[in-house]
């Protein structure tokens, strides 16, 4: 009987040498005449332990990590293939690892356990059960179930998913579309990537359910070009799903159709904004559209379109399988269900933490994250991507929920938590916020297009000591103009990080501090 060994194949595991680990394991086993079966599973999302090698045992999987290629020989010598736990990298049963055990994995229940493209693995763990239940319901009942769940758009805007679906559902029959926004461009976020690389059928199932609910037979996944591995895995999974009858003209013999195609973006952050995304899918420059009309009424090619983030769609199979109320039983206030928090940046134990809304940032950064990777004190945290505010320690005890965060100017966004230690110069960070906006602005509206360029210039003048006081006033007014006058969230929120630096870290945006911290003054 061959020993089953798991070596993850997601981008992070590969970035840390998982392929070489797998090769060395194979070679080491062959040299000792041990019969092994290496399964390339997805990642559990415990990135601080990647590459995380697991051995199948009757008691469950035993974990070893982080395993570098150089560790493989000593691991085999120490009895890895006999599942011995003597090596310093031995972690015991995977499911008992505290970081994993304390999570509430509803959406990410399967990642890292399965071979991502195995339909058999997927269905063994309740995969496609939600779709089967959906096929037995009428479309309004499906929309109602999603409304009951209280699910809100996980891309960042937090608009109720059920209401969006209802709008598309209520449009007269005809060509409609389901578009998945997989343009995960926020720094500090990788949850969409984990879904697509580690459990692609989950997204396929969620989109198919959306199509059945609103009467759309065509779906597109708009995937960023920075994710080549997700692209390959999705294409493979779609092909297999079609062959197995889960996609196509006759889903599971129901006589109902849904077709799915991956379309690649081309390195434009703005295309994560839904109307810009639709323009891009249509083959144009990704210029933001004015709303109304809403995409739900006039979306892709002018037709009613559901545009949902990967995580919103990935929450749907659980909701349809276990019931909207079961999902809604998690969370707090108007933020129902779970949030995929991504611990990133300068963090000791980075990775994915799926928990019901309501955990404090401090618990996430210290309890789960273990503080900074550098070991220096935490100084600031940026939540919600490049358009989110930098939060000082006084705000770390707030529970993570949409309304709670909004109350103090924070942004939950897509759930990215980027940690910074005390060596960071917040003046650099404020400047970068404006610089990023100037690089990525679509250029349609003036406050964003010109404001961002002027923002960089004004910050440079302040840091160079050129009429710093007057320029600080100018910067404050510029931020207000951008927030109030921009067409979409790009220009409207790009000043948030700058304003948060002005408010919470004012010492870092003066020339004296810039020089002391070794920051750039030009």
């Amino acid at each position, binding site marked *: 009987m061959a020993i089953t060994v798991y070596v993850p194949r997601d*981008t*992070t595991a*590969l*970035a*840390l040498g998982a392929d070489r680990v797998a090769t060395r394991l194979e070679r080491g086993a062959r040299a000792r005449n041990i019969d092994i079966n290496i399964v390339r599973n997805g990642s559990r999302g415990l*990135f*601080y332990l990647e590459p995380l090698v697991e051995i199948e045992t009757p008691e469950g999987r035993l974990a070893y990590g982080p395993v570098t290629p150089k560790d493989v020989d000593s691991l085999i010598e120490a009895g890895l293939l006999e599942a011995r736990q003597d090596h310093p990298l031995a972690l015991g049963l995977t499911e008992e690892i505290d970081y994993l055990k304390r999570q509430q994995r509803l959406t990410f229940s399967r990642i890292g356990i399965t071979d991502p493209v195995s339909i058999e693995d997927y269905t063994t763990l309740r995969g496609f059960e939600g779709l089967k239940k959906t096929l037995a319901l009428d479309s309004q009942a499906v929309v109602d179930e999603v409304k009951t769940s209280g699910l809100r758009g996980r891309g960042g805007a937090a608009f109720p998913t059920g209401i969006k679906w209802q709008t598309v559902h209520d449009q007269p029959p005809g060509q409609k579309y389901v578009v998945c926004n997989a343009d*995960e*461009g*926020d*720094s*500090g*976020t*990788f949850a969409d*990537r984990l879904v697509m690389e580690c459990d692609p059928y989950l997204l396929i199932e969620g989109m198919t359910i959306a199509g059945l609910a609103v009467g759309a037979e065509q779906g597109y996944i708009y995937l960023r*070009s*920075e*994710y*080549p*591995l997700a692209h390959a895995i999705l294409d493979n999974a779609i092909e297999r799903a079609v062959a197995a009858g889960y996609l196509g003209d006759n889903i599971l013999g129901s006589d109902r159709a849904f077709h799915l195609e991956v*379309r*690649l*973006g*081309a*390195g*434009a*952050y703005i295309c994560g904004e839904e109307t810009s995304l639709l323009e*891009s*899918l*249509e*083959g*144009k*420059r*990704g210029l933001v559209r004015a709303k109304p009309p809403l995409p739900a009424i006039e979306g892709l*090619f002018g037709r009613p379109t559901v545009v949902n983030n990967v995580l919103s769609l990935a929450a749907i199979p659980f909701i349809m399988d276990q019931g909207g109320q079961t999902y809604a039983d998690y969370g707090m206030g108007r933020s129902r269900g779970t949030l995929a928090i*991504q*611990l*990133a*940046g*300068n*963090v000791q134990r*980075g*990775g994915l933490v799926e928990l019901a809304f309501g955990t404090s940032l401090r618990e996430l950064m210290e309890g789960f994250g273990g503080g900074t*990777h*550098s070991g220096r004190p935490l100084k600031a945290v*940026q939540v919600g991507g*490049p358009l989110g505010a930098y939060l000082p320690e006084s705000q770390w005890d707030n529970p993570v929920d949409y309304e709670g965060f909004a109350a103090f100017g924070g942004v939950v966004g897509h759930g*990215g938590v*980027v*940690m*910074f*230690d005390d060596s*960071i110069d917040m003046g*650099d*960070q404020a400047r*970068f916020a404006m610089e*990023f906006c100037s*690089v*990525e602005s*679509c250029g349609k509206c003036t406050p964003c297009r010109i404001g961002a360029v002027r923002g960089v210039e004004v910050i440079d003048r302040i840091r160079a000591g050129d009429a710093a006081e007057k320029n600080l006033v100018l910067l404050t007014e510029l931020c207000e103009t951008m927030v109030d006058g921009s067409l979409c969230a790009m220009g409207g929120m790009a000043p948030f990080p700058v304003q948060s630096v002005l408010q919470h870290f004012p010492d870092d945006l003066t020339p004296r501090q810039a020089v002391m911290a070794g920051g750039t003054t030009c």
Partner: protein
Amino acid sequence: MSQIHSPIADAWTPAQLQAVIDAHRLMPGAMLPTLHAIQDRFGYIPDAAVPMIAEALRHTRAEVHGIISFYHHFRTHPPGRNVIQICRAEACQSVGSRQLEAHARQRLGIDYHQTTPDHEYTLEPVYCLGNCACGPSVRVNDDVMGRMTPEQFDELTDELSATVVEVK
């Protein structure tokens, strides 16, 4: 974009371009898939492709040019043999990507959007590779690498340069 033409600069023919365009022209929203297909096949989008795409997809040449220039991913000049992207986004900044960028520019002797005179390397900025818990992140062609230090960057470029010698 670099103005230097690498030895593969003219590794396309109008017939080949036309074949790629024709294979995609009937797709709904065919523009981006067509541009991707051309760049994947030839490494960049040659100027000669612009009027051909315009004709096939019923756009003006100005519109096609506008679309190509809007997206950071598309290039209109041949890249070096290895495209190195360094993540400039916040999560990587928090673990030293600014120092890594400076080091890479100095080591390769080029700035972003440039190609080394020997056509070995093209250096590009990228805003997030989704490897944010294990930065700084670098992408070399289609491989992402994490926790990149300046020393490891030197080893990486040594290895990449060494491969060339073997090939020759």
